[in-house]
């Protein structure tokens, strides 16, 4: 591959990283904390390419011939075009129902000391899906029983049941862990993958090992909402 082509590819790839960073689309792929690193990586890629282009122009091509005396074909470099095309043309969506349905490890949460503290007071408590599922699985004192909570997730139907689901990531979408809650009561009759905010109460002691820790939730009211800017919990 020509050196000029390599540099253009680097600029494109760096540009793709900056594009998803500044448009917020990076949250579909990686965790929020990676943002500074993504921007730095994009800027450095473009910088290295521009530096090489400027040097080549200043030196003139004939001279640079003497600097490099070993060559090998680098066809693999062409592959760098794939993420560029994927980001600019396809812009893959955030992971959704497909991952939750095929997952082996739904609602695997961890007992964690700081998570099982007192619930805040108030009529409706907004909770992350992670915290809700963790409490239903681990908290035997039943702090959630009788409390009205608000969850955000997308709808999913499987085996005649309706679920509200959400994915949590710790690094990137490749390590997504699915979380889901079985819905009862006023079940939203909206299409699958529609994001909703649901308010209601947990059915006490409904999460157990037999149902892979999927708690039941009695929906009292729901509103459909657009996909959150941060589609994953962390």
């Amino acid at each position, binding site marked *: 591959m*020509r050196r000029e082509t390599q540099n253009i590819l680097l600029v494109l790839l760096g540009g793709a990283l900056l594009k998803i960073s500044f448009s917020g689309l990076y949250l579909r*792929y990686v965790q929020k904390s990676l943002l500074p690193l993504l921007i730095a990586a994009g800027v450095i890629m473009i910088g290295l390419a521009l530096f090489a282009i400027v040097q080549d122009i200043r030196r003139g091509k004939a001279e640079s011939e003497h*600097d*490099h005396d*070993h060559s090998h074909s680098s066809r693999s470099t062409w592959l*760098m*075009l794939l993420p560029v095309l994927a980001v600019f043309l396809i812009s893959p969506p955030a992971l959704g129902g497909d991952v939750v349905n*095929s997952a082996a490890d739904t609602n695997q949460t961890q007992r964690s000391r700081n998570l099982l503290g007192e619930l805040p007071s108030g009529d409706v408590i907004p909770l992350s899906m992670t915290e809700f599922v963790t409490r239903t699985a681990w908290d035997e004192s039943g702090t959630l029983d009788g409390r009205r909570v608000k969850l955000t997730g997308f709808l999913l139907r499987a085996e005649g049941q309706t679920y509200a689901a959400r994915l949590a990531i710790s690094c990137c979408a490749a*390590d997504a862990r699915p979380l889901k809650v079985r819905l009862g009561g006023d079940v939203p009759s909206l299409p699958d993958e529609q994001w909703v905010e649901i308010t209601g109460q947990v059915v006490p002691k409904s999460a157990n090992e037999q149902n892979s820790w999927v708690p039941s939730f009695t929906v009292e009211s729901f509103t459909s909402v657009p996909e959150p800017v941060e589609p994953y919990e962390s």
Partner: protein
Amino acid sequence: MTITGEIRSSKRRSGGPRLKITSLEVLCGILVLALLFQSRLVDLLDVPKLRTASTVFVAICVQAMPFLVLGVLISGAIAAFVPASALRRLLPSKTALAVPVAGVAGVALPGCECASVPVAKRLMQQGVAPAVALTFLLAAPAVNPIVLVSTAVAFNDTPMMVVARFAGSLLTAMVMGWLWVRFGKMEWIAERALARMADHTGRSKWAVFAESARHDLVDAGGFLVLGGLFAAAFKTFVPVAWMQTLGGQIVLGVIVMALLAVILALCSEADAFVAVAFSALPLLPRLVFLVVGPAVDVKLIALQAGAFGKSFAFRFAPATFVVAILCAVVSGVVLL
């Protein structure tokens, strides 16, 4: 570097017929075609499984790129600012003794496996013995503080997991280093990996730094993408639901988790969170998952084949796989 042939051919071309297609025209052609058929392309990928695969693919690339950039910057800095003699003075002269030093030095590279491949290659080019560079390559992604902290967070119920992971990974790296001292052959490593940088007299150190980093990035970037493609395909199309049923079968569990670590190619900073989710399995298979993952996975094999050549990667990767399983089991039996 790759440009020699290109420039010669461009010189030749200037005298001859002008209608020769170079990579530049090919690139423009691909871009125009992709733009023209964009909507067709999007429709084609509008199948749940393919959508998931494309998201995972982009996620792996996006997640790994900053660490690859970090790796090539360190590699460039070594090329420009660290003379080979300084490295020689730093390391014990006997290779067998330098191996453990390199293993422990891995603690200092805070990144995942993508960063360590270009650095290890550069160390070899600067005259560090391959065994020592390879030990560093295997140790760095597994024993650095970021990885250990994330393991501790994930396994907050079983803190010994962190110790066992550290011991297992360090042992793997050192055993591989010593095995290379005993059995390794230089001719397995592609010549281009060992070729010293051309003499850069007359160029500023910063220019050497930038050019080395750029060259490494272009070289490794494609292989990283290749690894991401494989990992996304495996992650999406290999069903893992039956894994939870392995339960108590410990030997089978160890083998399956080791294979899973290879095909999932998770970042070493995140794999602990995935391992903790396999709660139906005992701790030992999950430790094997954590020790094998940073040492050998499809993304790393692609990167290694790119950096050191195919004949190296096809020997090194299976050997590392076996050694990593054994070291993880030893470490797990002693510590867990």
